[in-house]
């Protein structure tokens, strides 16, 4: 028994455990997601996060200890964000064709996402911390977390809001667009990509190829647009409120 104790003490102090359980939890989530034929509610990230939070609670491990291992995965968010230039470049021809409509729609969507989320939460009495963390929730998470940090929000809280937003968009997107009778696949994809980033894009790709391409495009451009517009908008609001 004391041997086991020794092994546990050793493992708990090394980054190996945090890294390994992260990969295991994600692959478990992915397995369930595929088994359910990609049911949007069984999102692998959501499942992995829930499993890991439960595990850390049960073993009495704090987040900082866990993160010492998980940071190796976390670090890759930076180069992955840079790599988003690749799908963006692949869509260059589609982009050139309807550039004006795409840009205007993305800027409108970007501002709507932030303003409506912050406005609704503010009206219902959310705290400043939650409001600032909610603002970039429609943007793909590596960018959203950077924006949240810049605004003075809580990046880890934003990461959770981003995932929940993606799941919401994937579940409600088709319903919303059908209700509005939007039939153009470009507009449908763009809308889901702006509102629900990568999770929405994955969903759009399953439904229609053109929608998927425009969703991926919208995800990338919305990330850039929001990263530029939101800090400026926040400064303007703070200035006016003074």
């Amino acid at each position, binding site marked *: 028994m004391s041997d086991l104790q020794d092994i546990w003490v050793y493992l708990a102090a090394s980054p190996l455990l945090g890294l390994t359980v*992260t990969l295991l939890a994600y692959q478990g989530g992915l397995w369930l997601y595929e088994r359910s034929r990609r049911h949007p509610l069984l*999102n*692998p990230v959501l499942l992995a*996060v829930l499993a*890991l*939070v439960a595990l850390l609670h049960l073993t009495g491990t704090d987040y900082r200890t*866990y*993160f010492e291992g*998980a940071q190796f995965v*976390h670090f*890759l968010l*930076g180069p*992955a*964000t*840079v*790599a*988003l*230039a*690749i*799908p963006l*470049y692949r869509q260059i021809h589609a982009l050139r064709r*309807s550039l004006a409509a*795409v840009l*205007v*729609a993305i800027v409108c969507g970007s501002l*709507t*996402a932030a303003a*409506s*989320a*912050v406005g609704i*939460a503010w009206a*219902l009495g*959310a705290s400043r911390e939650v409001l600032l963390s*909610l603002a970039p929730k429609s943007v793909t*998470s*590596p960018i959203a977390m*950077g924006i949240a940090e*810049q605004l003075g929000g809580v990046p*880890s*809280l934003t990461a*959770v*809001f981003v995932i929940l*937003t993606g799941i*919401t*968009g994937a579940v*409600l*997107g088709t319903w919303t667009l059908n209700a509005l009778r*939007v039939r*153009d696949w470009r*507009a449908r994809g763009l*809308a*889901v990509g702006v*509102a629900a980033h990568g*999770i929405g894009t994955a969903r759009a790709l399953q439904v229609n190829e053109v929608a998927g391409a425009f969703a991926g495009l*919208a995800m*990338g451009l919305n*990330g850039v647009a929001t990263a*530029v517009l939101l*800090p*400026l908008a926040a400064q303007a609001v703070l200035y006016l409120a003074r």
Partner: protein
Amino acid sequence: MLAYLTLLLVCQLIGEVIARLAGLPVPGPVLGMVILFAGLLLNGGLPDGLEKVGGALLEHLSLLFVPAGVGVMTHLSLVRAEWVPITAALLASTVITIAVTALVMRGIERLGAGAGAGDER
């Protein structure tokens, strides 16, 4: 492969340096993405190796946000205390954003439809 992984990191590094030096309100990796995009436009093509490295990173993009997502455990009390505004904001805002984006896109495409860019496709 290694060369292109290095290229991604170099783009990110340049992005970080520019963001800090110029005091820009944009995360370094986002600038790195813009730099890589500009580089691809100048190059006029997508190298195979870059597509492989980028594909490997983006294929499991969602895995990369798990560690940050687990960070919610440090905010459980905040989420519990404010779950009503949080839930309402996430649900309503997502639906509103989808509607606004799709309608604006459709509106502008219809305006331009006379000039040739039709609704078919």
